[in-house]
């Protein structure tokens, strides 16, 4: 890896981290499910995959998950966000490799997978299957939020190249 791509990696990681922290300060979109977020940091991760490649995207996802949890003083958050981000990113990359779907749809699926993975972690952590009752909300919110993230990535990648 040369210095240029290292610099890009660091800039994008920092950006994902800042977006993640700022997003946690915004009031939740669903008052009865305060832990559901739009996942704006995914903009950076998908953008990084398209621009730099999968290795860099994974690195940014890992850095983002770990340090957002630490910065917010909520390390248990990492247990939820790290596995979910990795599974979600893997799904996104596989769909891009298949090269059949639109960017927005891929981003949508990525967000849904992220949300469902978090539900599974919650079910394991709490030892109760009751959390599954939230699944419909998680899928709908994830699909819409993921689509919005996809639109933002499209605009971003047409206007910004680093």
């Amino acid at each position, binding site marked *: 890896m040369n210095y240029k791509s290292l610099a890009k990696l660091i800039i994008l990681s920092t950006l994902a981290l800042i977006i993640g922290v700022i997003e946690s300060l915004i009031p939740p979109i669903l008052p009865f499910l*305060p*832990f559901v977020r739009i996942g704006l940091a995914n903009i950076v991760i998908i953008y990084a995959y398209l*621009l730099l490649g999968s290795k860099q995207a994974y690195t940014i996802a890992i850095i983002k998950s770990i340090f957002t949890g630490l910065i917010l003083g*909520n390390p*248990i958050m990492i247990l939820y966000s790290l596995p979910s981000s990795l599974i979600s990113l893997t799904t996104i990359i596989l769909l891009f490799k298949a090269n*059949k779907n639109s960017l*927005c749809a891929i981003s949508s699926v990525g967000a849904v997978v992220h949300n469902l993975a978090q539900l599974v972690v919650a079910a394991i952590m709490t030892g109760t299957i009751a959390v599954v*009752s939230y699944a*419909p909300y998680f899928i709908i919110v994830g699909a819409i939020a993921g689509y919005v993230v996809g639109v933002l990535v499209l605009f971003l*990648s047409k206007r910004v190249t680093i």
Partner: protein
Amino acid sequence: MNTAKPNTKKGFFQKADLLIYSILLLLVLTTLGFLPKEKGAYAEIYSDGKLYGVYDLNTNAEMKIEGKEGYNVVVIADSKVWVKEASCPGQDCVRHKEISKANQTIICTPNRLIIIIKGKSDIDAYTGGGL
């Protein structure tokens, strides 16, 4: 130089997306069955992974539950349960809307507090229906 522009040709919509969206719709429809509908009868509260107590929803109570990592103030009133105050950094549990239906949960991950509402049929499961 690897500043090749990302492939964004496949923009907003492709025919193959229909398959994805129908799978998502199917998932929503199947999981809708899990949505809490039954009225809750009592609340189970777990702290640090252990059962802290079981409370009838028809009673009114306000209690401070001290866990190893911090405390939560849980309120039961009008057949609803909510967290009034918490020592955790995220405050997600405090923002959580009050719960009253069977299978609804409030979870405070930093303090390891779980509140689960159980319905009347769950009590029947314990007592063999003879309540």
